[in-house]
């Protein structure tokens, strides 16, 4: 079954994607999410960002369910 997910973007990632929310299809897990993002927006490969699923940062490949709350969080340095 095709999975449609929404991804929230923060900081400088919004400038790259030109949107603060992104809808993607056929995303099974974090690896396929990253692959899809890098094909659609190659400039993201140069950026460091954390991926959060349901408000928890994840460090390993994880299955993404249909209604998961996905966020891409880049580091901020300004002060």
């Amino acid at each position: 079954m095709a999975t449609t997910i929404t991804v929230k973007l923060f900081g400088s990632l919004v400038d790259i994607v030109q949107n603060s929310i992104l809808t993607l299809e056929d995303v099974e897990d974090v690896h396929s999410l990253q692959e899809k993002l890098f094909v659609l927006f190659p400039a993201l490969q140069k950026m460091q960002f954390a991926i959060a699923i349901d408000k928890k940062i994840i460090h390993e490949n994880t299955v993404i369910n249909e209604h998961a709350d996905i966020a891409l969080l880049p580091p901020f340095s300004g002060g």
Partner: protein
Amino acid sequence: MDKQTLYDRFQRQIILPNLDELAQQKLLDAKVLVIGAGGLACPCLEYLVRAGVGNIGIVDGDYVTISNLQRQTLYNNNDIGKLKVDCAKERLLNIHPHTNITSYPFFLDRKNCLAIIQQYDIIIDCTDLFSVRYCINDACVLLEKALVFGAVFQYEGQVAVFNIGEKNEQRNLRDIFPTIPNQEAHTTCNEAGILGAVVGIIGTMQALETIKLITNMQGVLANQLLTYHFLHHNIFTVSIPKNNTYTLPMNEQEFLRVGENTSCNNQIQQELNQAQFLEKIKAGNTQVIDVRQLHEMPIIPELNALRIPIDTLAERIHEIDSSKDILLFCHAGIRSLMALEYLSEECGMQKVFHLKGGLLQWKN
């Protein structure tokens, strides 16, 4: 200060639930180090002093410039050209003269940071470069100090409180972003722009988290990362699981050794202020390179710079004389830092320096 004066000054907060005279005494006894004296630090310092935090250290080697005044609320027109830590201390002592304020008029680096940080209970990161933020982070993990982190990007801000609770529950910046991010990709306020009210709210949130920590209040943002989007007023908070992909120095020797091998420390050593930059030129055997685009102004005649825009650096590399000290500058110090990294790391040049803060900080 006699008890009645003390009570009169802090009466409005002592009557709050969860903040009694005992909590006030904890604030008076607390030792807090604020690193950086810019946009985050100004409101943070002011609210800490007004709340009665008794012992405060401020670290910053920077001087007040006109471009700071749009957001750095402790300074005014008369302070331009003066050391930030001196101006901040004077202003804060006017607010509450019984505060014990120690100023450190230099930039923090791996060599000096452990000795300073270990004198304080809570460390507040109000800096603006990843290299310094990771230096502070690693030192706080090593010395087991609570770290109140704050950072901004345009209309968004992040706040986190690290190294809180039991050892196995403690998190730090590397549990979110294990390696030092590329400063070039993630720009600073000088390059990305910043509104005073935005950085002011994040700095104020850092002060609030610190007061909550000192007085043992509930709801500290412990080991979580909060992101606040100020245009939409969305707050997004995530928990941080342990990340096992990094290792941190276990003692002072390792901490210093890591510094020697990372661009973090090298970058700090290769950063020059205006006086150091001019001193190097005066000493001779230097090549000064302006990495701005050719249309960018102003031109500083005394620098007598060769103009090589950063995007043409690779193709014009043969014009750079690596037998000399290479001095790089740009508008805000970001592109010159990128050029420094390229020349040091990709081209193996040893004697490369850049003007910290760029021409924005230049005083005629």
